[in-house]
């Protein structure tokens, strides 16, 4: 390998007792595993096994206590002729059901869940998500323009369907993103934290904010005909 080609660095494992001699090539794009230094390691048995057992015991106690004070619901025998109003899916699908209230079934029930699953799977296959540099670290004005245009298009789309329970968390998170763009003289701790966040962090946080809002609204704030109700009334 020529000296001028500085693409690779070579190192040689020295402890022949522990490992056979091996040459290591480390490219500039090091993987997480290669970057790991010699950290203190513990034996899984008993350290990991014991901690696992303790976690299992704590969990079991918690489950037993909850099972003693809370009863699983059981309603009347299933009757296809009597439709409850509203008929609700299990709580983890109520976010989707809330989307169904705004969007056509094909979009809310099929397209959006499929896109979410695909998006989750491909996260680690894009370098931008692996590097995880702060969103506003470089190329600031162009990125801000792209960001504002994308959010505006998204909000127009949501606005056409009047999907308020999606619009609110979207505006909140997008607002925080824009706040973190400005370089304040005396930034709060939260702003300093937000400023170092990468794009993937913002997208995931937005996704969680929207999902949580939709699920909570669908569970507690929706009554007959999927109309808005206050749970305490």
């Amino acid at each position: 390998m020529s000296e001028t080609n500085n693409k690779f660095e070579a190192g040689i494992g020295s402890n022949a007792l522990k490992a056979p001699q091996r040459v290591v090539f480390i490219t500039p794009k090091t993987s997480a595993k290669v970057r790991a230094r010699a950290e203190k390691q513990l034996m899984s048995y008993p350290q990991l096994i014991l901690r696992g057992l303790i976690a299992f015991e704590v969990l079991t106690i918690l489950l037993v206590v909850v099972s003693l004070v809370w009863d699983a619901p059981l309603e009347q025998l299933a009757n296809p002729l009597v439709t409850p109003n509203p008929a609700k899916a299990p709580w983890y699908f109520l976010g989707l059901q809330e989307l169904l209230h705004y969007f056509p079934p094909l979009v809310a029930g099929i397209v959006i869940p499929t896109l979410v699953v695909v998006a989750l799977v491909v996260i680690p296959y894009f370098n931008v998500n692996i590097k995880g540099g702060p969103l506003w670290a470089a190329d600031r004005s162009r990125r801000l323009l792209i960001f504002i245009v994308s959010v505006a298009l998204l909000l127009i789309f949501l606005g056409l369907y009047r999907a308020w329970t999606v619009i609110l968390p979207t505006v909140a998170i997008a607002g925080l993103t824009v706040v973190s763009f400005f370089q304040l003289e005396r930034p709060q701790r939260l702003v300093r934290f937000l400023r170092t966040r990468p794009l993937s962090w913002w997208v995931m946080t937005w996704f969680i904010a929207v999902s949580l809002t939709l699920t909570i609204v669908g569970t507690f704030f929706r009554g007959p005909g999927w109309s808005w109700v206050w749970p305490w009334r």
Partner: protein
Amino acid sequence: MTTTTLEQTMNRLRATRAWRSIFRRGPARTNRTRSLAIFGNVFLHLLPVKVRQQSLRVRATYYLGSISFFLFVVLTLTGVLLMFYYHPAVPQAYLDMKDLRFVVSNGVFLRNLHRVAAHIMVIAVFWHMFHVFYRGGYRPPHEFNWAIGVVLLLLTLFLSYTGYLLPWDQLAFWAITVGTNILASAPFAGPQLRYVLLGGNLVGENALLRFYVLHCVILPLVAFLFIAVHFWRIQKDGGLTVGESDERDKQ
């Protein structure tokens, strides 16, 4: 009369032929025998022999992955017990729920345990995924294990959803009706897909039987396989690297 300590009793037990034939290693006092305890065991050998001290701290993982797995174990055990008292038939399924409440000893407690664990498992698996994301745990070389994790999330949801129909009360019936109507809106083959899942166009006794088989046999087996691969890949991908992103946060 001599008092024997636990240590002495254990030593005597370990020296017996039966004990040695089962464990085939000495007491776990050296790192060699501690390693043997892991990779000499068909179940434990999915785990790494050594773990980074950083990754064992509670704040590193909150043990969310382990807790998800433990919930799966609890659900399997309570689920098998529930199967002893359950017939996937209309309306016997609902009458069995009544029996669990009024006839079977601790039947309510058993059903509560299964239901509570199921709800908490959905929460735990979601939380686990978000936590891994924010810790950067999806980064190479963990990218394939992340994808397996997404599959496990979907399996958890399907397991919970198929179980939702089994009590055959109004809550169950209409929740499944709402859900499968969404499926019917899929392009090209939506109604056909629903027909396959329900064994008909409406939620009826065929649907109950299919959901029962999916819930008690097919999905748990598939989930079990994926869980095994998930654990195995943690080890093969070089263990958890949670300590690193911790340091990155401090910088």
